[in-house]
């Protein structure tokens, strides 16, 4: 009997939540947005998503194989990365771009920096920014197809290229009502131009809610991000308290997808509760800044990547106070 008994240190029980089950929940949470993207943009969107996921998984597998890493249970994390990246492409993108992007995300952004848990930058966003810089045109060729998207896709009919709602709003004079040029309900449900996964705020919210209910993410980052971004836009829009404008800014562009799925990436966001709130606020303010002051209408991806770099700093500033200790912990000498 002695040989059969495992001896280990306490505690002798585990919650049962595993890295794998968490990643699975993230994939499930992305299904509404993915499904809507496919419904809207047709079979091409599906091809883009599948291509990015498959190439991400293969890249992960090959890296582990050639680097003689033990067989890891992290395919799930590669699936998440691939899917998030895929959702960031316009449906019109040529399929080799997702392949390049996935390989870049997995190999360069993730593995070369030490693999799962060590990368300082969100792999999907890192790859996206890389691609936007290299292939700007192909990454922003947005297509809107109303009506029978799936059939159109099968028939190979391309929709019309069109500016995204955010770009339209940006060019509006402050005196024109937002509602007159874009339809808020279309934006909320997702019948607008944009990348595959970002058009439908509703689908993203459903996924985000699922993550919150499953306790995969807390509300700290998304809420801090959305509220601070909204507040910033309201203050600096020059439109006063314009609810339509506020709503359009919140549900438009990549903000929803970014706030619920990108900014909440565990590895690249702060681990401390206050750190998460500060991180969210920082993201909101910077996104607002880019949207109001720069020439582009977007800004979510670059903001998140930039803030990723600040995470160690934020964490150090927001170390929780230990139970029964009033004073803050001393500075950590080395990188902890």
């Amino acid at each position, binding site marked *: 009997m002695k040989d059969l008994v*495992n*001896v280990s*240190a*306490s505690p*002798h*029980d585990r919650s049962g939540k595993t890295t794998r089950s968490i990643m699975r929940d993230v994939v499930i949470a992305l299904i509404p947005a993915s499904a809507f993207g496919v419904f809207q943009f047709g079979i091409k969107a599906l091809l883009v998503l599948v291509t990015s996921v498959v190439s991400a998984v293969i890249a992960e597998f090959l890296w582990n194989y050639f680097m003689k890493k033990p067989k890891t249970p992290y395919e799930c994390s590669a699936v998440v990365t691939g899917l998030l990246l895929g959702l960031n492409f316009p449906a019109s993108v040529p399929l080799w771009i997702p392949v390049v992007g996935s390989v870049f995300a997995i190999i360069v952004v993730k593995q070369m920096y030490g*693999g*799962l848990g060590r990368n300082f930058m969100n792999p999907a966003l890192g790859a996206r920014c890389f691609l936007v810089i290299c292939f700007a045109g192909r990454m922003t060729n947005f297509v809107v197809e109303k009506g029978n998207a799936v059939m159109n896709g099968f028939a190979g009919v391309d929709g019309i290229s069109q500016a995204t709602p955010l770009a339209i709003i940006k060019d509006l004079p402050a005196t024109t009502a937002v509602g007159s040029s874009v339809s808020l309900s279309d934006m909320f449900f997702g019948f607008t131009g944009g990348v595959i996964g970002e058009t439908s705020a509703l689908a993203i919210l459903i996924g985000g809610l699922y993550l919150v209910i499953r306790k995969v993410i807390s509300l700290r980052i998304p809420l801090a991000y959305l509220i601070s971004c909204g507040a910033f836009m309201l203050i600096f829009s020059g439109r006063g308290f314009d609810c339509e404008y506020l709503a359009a800014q919140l549900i438009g562009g990549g903000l929803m997808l970014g706030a619920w799925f990108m900014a909440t990436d565990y590895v690249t966001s702060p681990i401390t509760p206050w750190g998460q709130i500060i991180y969210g606020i920082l993201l909101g303010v910077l996104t607002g800044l880019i949207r109001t002051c720069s020439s582009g209408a977007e800004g979510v991806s670059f903001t998140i990547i930039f803030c990723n770099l600040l995470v160690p700093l934020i964490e150090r500033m927001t170390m929780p106070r*230990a139970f029964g*200790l009033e004073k803050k912990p001393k500075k950590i000498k080395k990188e902890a």
Partner: protein
Amino acid sequence: MSKDTFRGGVHPYEGKELTENKEAIPFIPKGDLVFPMSQHIGAPAKPIVETGQRVLMGQTIAEAGGFVSSPIASSVSGYVKEIKPVLTVSGAMVPAIVIENDGLYEAVEGLGEDRDYRELSRQEIRDIIRDAGIVGMGGAGFPTFIKLSPKNDAAIDTIIVNGSECEPYLTSDYRVMLQEGERLVGGLKIILSLFDNARGVIAIEDNKPKAIEHMKKLVEGEEKITVKKVRTKYPEGAERQLISVVTGRKINSSMLPADAGCIVDNVDTVVAVYMAVAKKTPLMRRVVTVSGDAIADPRNFIVKTGTNYNELVEAAGGFTAPPAKMISGGTMMGMALFDTNIPVTKTSSALLAFKKDPMDKVPTSPCIRCGRCVAACPQHLVPQMLMDAAEKFDNAAFEAVNGMECVECGCCAYVCPSGRPLTQAIKETRRSILDERKKAAAAAAAKK
């Protein structure tokens, strides 16, 4: 001021339904009884009997080996068979007195006789508690008379009886409260008589409504004693957390509960105080939960200290399947056993046996920085950073992120989805830092 819980903590599977509704029954040992000399924190006890000598039930067979130490009483009558090192729960070999039970249970004079504590001076009560060998029976085993002798008696305003029993599977305190509630109240009254300004609080988790009701009935009319319902959460019964829940005061690792005007004692300990003072009976029994899915008939036993664990397993119907994991104590802070041929000591609370190792649920993988350990830590630390420092053997960084405040509760490792042995790594580093400090102190003392 007071609330019903603290921030952090976890909700592990409780498994209490296996044993909570079965009466704790006295267990009569058959084999030899073994009394290790280290059953408490502090210096080992010193044997005062010789091989071949006849001892009586309740007789002191080993005296305290220093101020922080505790004597040991025999729980049966019989002959001293030998004095030899034996295997104990921690896996260490410890010198022990082995007594062959003659089955007569012949008691020392006066054992079990009534005594009125009101006729005793405070010093007499403390001496009785010391000589009865009473130590904290919640697990730590710190001598109780020292706890009950703070620097300033008048500053103690709250005596907390820890009836929260937050460790999974354990139901022994619950059974004691239900079956021996009167003794518990009696013991608490004795302790309260030592402190003029103190009130007594019996803290019980709200998953034990029967115990709460029962104890409330028993303290009716007692002006100084109340029953407090606390929320069911692990580690509600950890000393620092419980003090803050009951009084709103917080202590850290460099303070004692007395600094917050509190003394916290475990249920079994308070009953032992009652037995020693009011019944002239030294500490020689322990209520032990034998449970887990590999045990045929899980239940609580009222056990004589020194009884072999094997006998308890047998009394509980034996194993239904070869256990993959055996634990002395609860699943969160207990110690894994590789052998059940060990004696019940003053601090044994449970023997658990499982068909499957619960650890297998979560394979080990790299940290994904999910923050679950941070949310779970009742000490409000960042276990992930502590473990990073521990893995680099960077003790300075470890202390800088307050590693010494860890209470080794196990919450962080419990929640980690990457199956990282956080608690273990943190515990080891704490031990090494404590050792270093001890060495440094010894070196400094030697220089002088």
